[in-house]
């Protein structure tokens, strides 16, 4: 772990006391978000998401396979995240570190628990043959707030993915459609993340804010204003009031981001 100069922390908190952030944003303001879909030809779905300088590429591959024994009537989702050395001077090559695992699991739960992909429609022959959806998250440039960028990338990539029924037509049952069709999706919840530094709560932290943050909270909310997932991180603590503040900010920002996502995926 980098030993962050105390001077940088001082600078950020002094600015905060004046109601400012290092890049001029307000405390609950996101950086500029860009969403581009269908960026990789070989993938069944893909998206490149930029939040400020943070850049994530998500590719979806869809394959035939067997369902899990305890859920014969559901397709399979599998999420991996690679913190490739390209993205940061601190990421080393090799097996996934605990940060990459936490990231993949939080994105995975965001997709799985919110039932944004209708996994029951991925069944071809119950208990025998289903579609397996692989969500591979490639972090290209790391300038903070990977959770939101990766979640948004996964949703955008999934939203434009097609089931490659044509390519696998010989392995499908006779009465199964042989033309590609869109991955069955419902309205996705949006993840928004804030960090606390001293007693200030910043949404969408950039790298410099993230590495000195005391504690982090990610909240996924849906179109109805309901909460669909939460994940606290780092070794600081929140009060109940702070948690409620983050929920509110997540609802507000989530609405805006949802609009942009729907626009970019044509929904």
């Amino acid at each position, binding site marked *: *772990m980098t*030993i962050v100069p105390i001077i940088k922390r001082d600078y950020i908190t002094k600015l905060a006391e004046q109601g400012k952030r290092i890049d001029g944003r307000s405390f609950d303001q996101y950086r500029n978000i860009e969403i581009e879909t269908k960026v990789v030809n070989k993938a069944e779905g893909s998206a490149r998401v930029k939040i400020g300088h943070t850049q994530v590429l998500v590719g979806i591959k869809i394959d035939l396979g067997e369902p899990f024994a305890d*859920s014969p009537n559901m397709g399979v989702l599998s999420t991996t995240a690679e913190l490739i050395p390209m993205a940061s001077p601190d990421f080393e090559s090799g097996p996934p570190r*605990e940060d990459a*695992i*936490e990231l*993949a*699991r939080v994105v995975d*739960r965001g997709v799985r*628990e*919110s039932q944004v992909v209708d996994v029951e429609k991925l069944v071809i022959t119950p208990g025998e043959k289903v579609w397996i959806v692989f969500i591979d998250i490639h972090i290209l440039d790391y300038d903070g707030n990977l959770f939101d960028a990766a979640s948004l990338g996964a949703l955008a990539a999934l939203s434009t993915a097609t089931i490659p029924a044509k390519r696998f037509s010989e392995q499908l049952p006779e009465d199964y459609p042989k033309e590609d069709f869109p991955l069955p999706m419902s309205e996705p919840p949006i993840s928004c993340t804030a960090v606390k530094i001293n007693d200030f709560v910043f949404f969408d932290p950039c790298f410099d804010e993230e590495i000195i943050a005391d504690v982090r*909270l990610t909240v996924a909310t849906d179109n109805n*204003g*309901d*909460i*669909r*997932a*939460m*994940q*606290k*991180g*780092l*070794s*600081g*603590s*929140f*009060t*109940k009031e702070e*948690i*409620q503040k983050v*929920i509110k900010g997540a*609802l507000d920002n989530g609405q805006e981001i949802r609009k942009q996502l729907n626009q970019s995926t044509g929904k």
Partner: protein
Amino acid sequence: MKSDIELISSEGKRLDGRGPHDLRKIKIEAGVLHRADGSCSLEWGGNKVIAAVYGPREAVPRHTQNPLRAIVQARYNMAAFSVEDRKRPGPDRRSVEISKVISEALEKVVLTEQFPRASIDVSIEVLDAEAGTRCAGLTAAGVALVDAGIPMRDIPVACAAGKIGGQVVLDLGKEEDNFGDADLPVAISPRTGEVLLLQMDGHLTVDEFNQAFDLAVKGCHTVSEIQKKAIMQKYQSAAAEVQE
């Protein structure tokens, strides 16, 4: 995942007979191991966990050392035989994540600044698993840290709330976890109410979240009392032994 099981009756009675705000039975014993610096055995409903603490000791490998404070490294591990379908031994992605969130929660209460470059290692073994092992493990770790004499601001404690059959309830059991609507594990520092661990899966309105959160915190305080009793008991029997 939906199911036809009625998880809670119209009278508010749950599958195991509990009311909405009832905890499962909890039993805590401090100081159950000889070699560890501190230890704790904990049963929570059908869960059975042991926690052991070693340290403060030099953190290895060296590059993990923090020159300003100790690091807290929790390792949550499920025994192969702790679940119905045998689990492959060794860490998987789930246990890596749980180890991380528990480590972060504990680090907040330990006075890490007293031990630069050191590591405080917490080993949590799940021997029987039945919904809520991360809360059980964190709670056991809190007692084991006290038993090891690690200086702390407070004894951390955890408890979950959730939602089943449309109702907010305390401390989900196995079927409630599998077929319920939401699960909200929370860990706090009971003296200050600071939230050390917070995760949520499922679907809650903001109002339901507030109810569930308050219920989980209340549960934490109840469990905290059981923790303290277990610690007292250990010290009393230790004192008794000295007197004999």
